[in-house]
Structure formats: C-alpha cells, structure tokens
C-alpha cells in the first residue's frame, strides 16, 4: 500500500503546535530558573570545606546524573504520592526538570568557581581595584564567561528533555503532537513537524546565545 504524506494536518493545526511550543517554553524557563539556583547552591556545597554539605552535594549530583530522566520523572509523579506528596503533572514535570538541570549546573558552576586563578584576584587588588570591582571584573564576569558555553549546551539539553514530560501527560509540544496523532493517525507528518519545531527552537537558542557571547563575553577568547 502506497502512503502519501499529507501535510495539511500540520497547516490546519498550527495553533495547536504554537500552544504546545509556548507551554514547552514555560516549563523550560521555570525549570531552568529553579535549576540554576539549585546549581549555584550545589556548587557552593561542592566547594565548601564542610564535609556534610560537600557529601550532600556530591550525592545529589551523582544520583541525578546517573539515572534516566524518565525514571526520575516517574518517581516524582507516581512514586512520591506513596509518601503523601501529591503533585499535578505540570508540577512534577517542572520539579523533575529543575532537579535534573540543577545536578548538571552544579558541576558547571563549580568548574567556573574553581577556574578563577587566585593570582588574578591578587593582581586586581594590587592594581588598586576596590573589593566589589575585583569581584565583578576579576571573579564574576570571567567565571560566567568560562561556564557560559557549557551552560548553553545544558539549556539545549533541558529543552530536548522537556519532551519526555509528555509521558506523565504534562501538556507541552510533544504532548500536543501525541494528542493530534491519536486523532488523525498522521504520525509521520506530525512528528516530522514537531521535530522541525524543536530544531528551530534549539537553533534559535544557539543563535541568541552566540550573539550574547559575542556582546558580553568576547574577552574569553583572550584569556584562554
């Protein structure tokens, strides 16, 4: 039997795809914001002298980096109600994505903190910079510049991972695709269109990230 792709199913449902994209962005933006805070806290724990804090941070990072996101998601959504913690699928999705992102962000931020040379701080002081100026120009901005590429890749991974939350029926782009697929059976056209939207989104993020890097972190070319 010959199968003829009919992309009208895509053109007729553009608003559905658009809604899905907006929901995906919402989930990702909230999750990355929470995840970044977790990552900074985790990095502070990882670099602290306190053994307990250090141990907790290591356990957090290793556990969440060495188990699949899908299992983490199922654990939060299906497992935690067993302890009396109930969440909507959206909350579970955001929570799982945040905690997962936080674990990777911890390692990235830690590398940034450890990458700052002590001698640079001393040099800054010797040049007569005030403490706040040293922190801003010698510590914070170079550290951000150093971790920026890794952080951008992690954001892209978070966008791609967000498609998995469709499996607990959290509404986003992939969920919209599954919904439409179950009604029209035009699986090839729909999943191809959704893939193209993800590719567009990821390339857009990479482009914006590149422009930001060129604008604010151009100096990283010289300190490497």
């Amino acid at each position, binding site marked *: 039997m010959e199968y003829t792709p009919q992309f009208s199913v895509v053109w007729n449902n553009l608003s559905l795809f658009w809604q899905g994209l907006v929901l995906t962005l919402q989930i990702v933006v909230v999750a990355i914001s929470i995840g970044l805070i977790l990552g900074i806290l985790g990095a502070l724990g990882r670099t602290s002298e306190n053994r307990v804090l250090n141990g907790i941070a290591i356990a957090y990072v290793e556990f969440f980096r060495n188990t699949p996101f899908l299992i*983490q998601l199922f654990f939060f959504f299906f497992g935690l109600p067993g302890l009396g913690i109930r969440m909507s699928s959206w909350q579970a999705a955001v929570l799982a994505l945040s905690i997962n992102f936080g674990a990777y962000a911890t390692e990235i931020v830690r590398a940034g903190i450890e990458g700052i040379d002590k001698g640079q701080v001393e040099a800054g002081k010797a040049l007569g910079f005030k403490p706040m100026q040293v922190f801003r120009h010698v510590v914070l901005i170079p550290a951000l510049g150093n971790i920026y590429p890794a952080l951008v890749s992690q954001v892209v991974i978070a966008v*791609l*991972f967000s498609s*998995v939350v469709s499996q607990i029926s959290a509404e986003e782009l*992939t969920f919209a695709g599954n919904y439409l697929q179950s009604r029209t059976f035009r699986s090839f056209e729909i999943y*191809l269109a959704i893939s193209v939207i*993800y590719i567009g989104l990821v*390339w857009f993020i990479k482009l914006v990230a590149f422009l930001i890097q060129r604008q604010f972190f151009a100096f990283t070319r010289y300190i490497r």
Partner: protein
Amino acid sequence: MQDFTLANILANLLIATRWTIALSAIAFFGGGIVGFIIMLMRISPNPIIRTISLIYVEIFEATPLLMQLFLVFFGISVLLGLNLSAWAAATIALTTYSSAFLADIWRGSVEAVPRGQWEASRALGLPYIKQLKRIILPQAVRMSIPSTVGFAVQVVKGTSLASVIGFIELTRSASSISNVTFQPFLVYSMAALIYFCLCFPLSLWSKHLEKKFSYEG
C-alpha cells in the same frame, strides 16, 4: 494471582535489565560505527561532504531522542509500509542519536591534535589516509576516550525512552510491575538504583581516565 515479594520485584527488574544492557551495547557500537564515518566526513577536506555531515549532526543533536523514536517507530513504519518492531525502531533511533554525539566528540578530539602534526606528516610525504591512520587518529583516540566513556552513560540512560514505544527493558518492566503491585515508590526506587549501578561505575571510570590522561599529557 502471583504475589510480588521484594525479591520477586528485584528479580524481575534484573531480568529486564539484560535488555537495557543489550540495547545500550548495540546502540553504542552501532552509533560508534556510524559516528566514525560521520566524523571522517566532518574533517574531510571536501566542503560539501563537511556540510552534509555538519547538518546531520546539528539535526540529530537538536531533536529530542523521544521524537526520533516516534518518527522511526510510528512515522517511518507508516511511510514505508514497514512493520518495525519496537526493538528495531529503538535500535535505529538510538544508533543515529549516538552516532551524532560520538561524531561530535571525536571531531573535537581530532581538531585538538595540533595542526603541526598534519603539516609534519604531510611534509614526510604521507598520503591523507596514512596521515589519519598513523599520526592523527592514534593521538585523537587517546584524548577522546574519557568523553566517549562518559557518553556511554547517556546511551544507557537514553535506552529508558525505548520503554515509551513498548520495548520491554528496565523502565518498561518497572512501570508494569508498579501497575500490578501498586508500589510505585518502591519499584521506581529500585529501578533507579539499578540504573545507578550501571551508570555510576562508567562515570567514575570516565572521570578517572580524564585525570590520568590530563596528567600524562
């Protein structure tokens, strides 16, 4: 009806773990072979071949693995009229996924080999293939091993998504068992622990190799 004890659950999960390991191994080696070819294309002197491989990598790195699975399992089978099994679809999708990332990792290692090595071997009159085989790749392989092992962790974790299209591996089996026993907390914790036992040694090994090579280098 059969009653599930803790040992029962663990035994069933471990049986399913075999398929997680098998799928990971196939995807990793299949991805390695395809990825190697893509990597060779990426460093090719021919700009057209370079662009094609660049597009391949950029497309597969920019789509969710879940979407690749859906496209192969539902999409391609409808389009080509093939009745792909979940096993075949998962293998294809995970292989292409791995190949894109491995190609990118290995290209990075090849480009990290100092330019002078190319020039010196060329000056010695080695043809391109021999330059690659004798001079460049042996050095690049050393550098790429830590990240390659690290990526194996991503492949093992990635196989959990094959559960979504009905391939029975660890995650799928955990879902079924938790549906029968009504103990999702326990079952998913155990599944997570099994994944951890598979992935953590690989992560440690990767970190160890990274340290070892960076001291020697």
